[in-house]
């Protein structure tokens, strides 16, 4: 289910280093996964997605890894920049949810100068 009652975990990373944000999902039948970035006071923005028939997908400076065996999803950000500071959410989607998405609790990424 949705982990909406948890306080956000925080990841602090030095500027220029790589960041890895992790997410555990709940439904082994979920077949579509999304990472969102949410800056303060704004709505979540789509970063990258992956379908369950893949285990890795790369975008610009971002890579998503999917491990279906342990129901784990990760987002890797290369050469982290100050503009990457935000809250990052994973979301899973499956027809069992009807038209819905189930969001993870989110991780706050802080980039240190």
């Amino acid at each position, binding site marked *: 289910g949705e982990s*909406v009652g948890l306080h956000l975990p925080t990841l602090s990373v030095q500027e220029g280093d790589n960041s890895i944000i992790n997410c555990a999902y709940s439904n082994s039948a979920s077949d579509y996964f999304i990472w969102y970035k949410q800056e303060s006071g704004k709505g979540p923005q789509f970063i990258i997605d992956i379908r369950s028939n893949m285990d890795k997908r790369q975008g610009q400076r971002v890579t998503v890894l999917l491990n279906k065996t342990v129901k784990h999803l990760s987002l890797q950000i290369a050469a982290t920049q100050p503009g990457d500071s935000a809250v990052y959410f994973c979301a899973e989607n499956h027809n069992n949810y009807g038209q819905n998405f189930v969001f993870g609790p989110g991780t706050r990424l802080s980039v240190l100068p």
Partner: protein
Amino acid sequence: SQTIHQWPATLVQPVGSPLSLECTVEGTSNPNLYWYRQAAGRGLQLLFYSIGIDQISSEVPQNLSASRPQDRQFILSSKKLLLSDSGFYLCAWSVQPGGGTEAFFGQGTRLTVV
């Protein structure tokens, strides 16, 4: 291209007053529509979703209601606000049929009930 508009951006309302938040989508037809609430420093809680006009599903019992009078319009309402209704409200849409496409979010409404 598709766009989603949500307003107002911020709202301060007294306890017991009514609420109406509006969301409209442009550039697509028959979208799935969603209302989420986000408490400060927390995750996203799905409140309502809709797959068509006048077709609303509620995910959690609460003091709020939703309506979809037109295909691309989604309204979140309350007759009497509670302090606990304060939060950041997000409208979102996705393409039908459901599954396998991302949801696109509006910029949110920060509601403070005083």
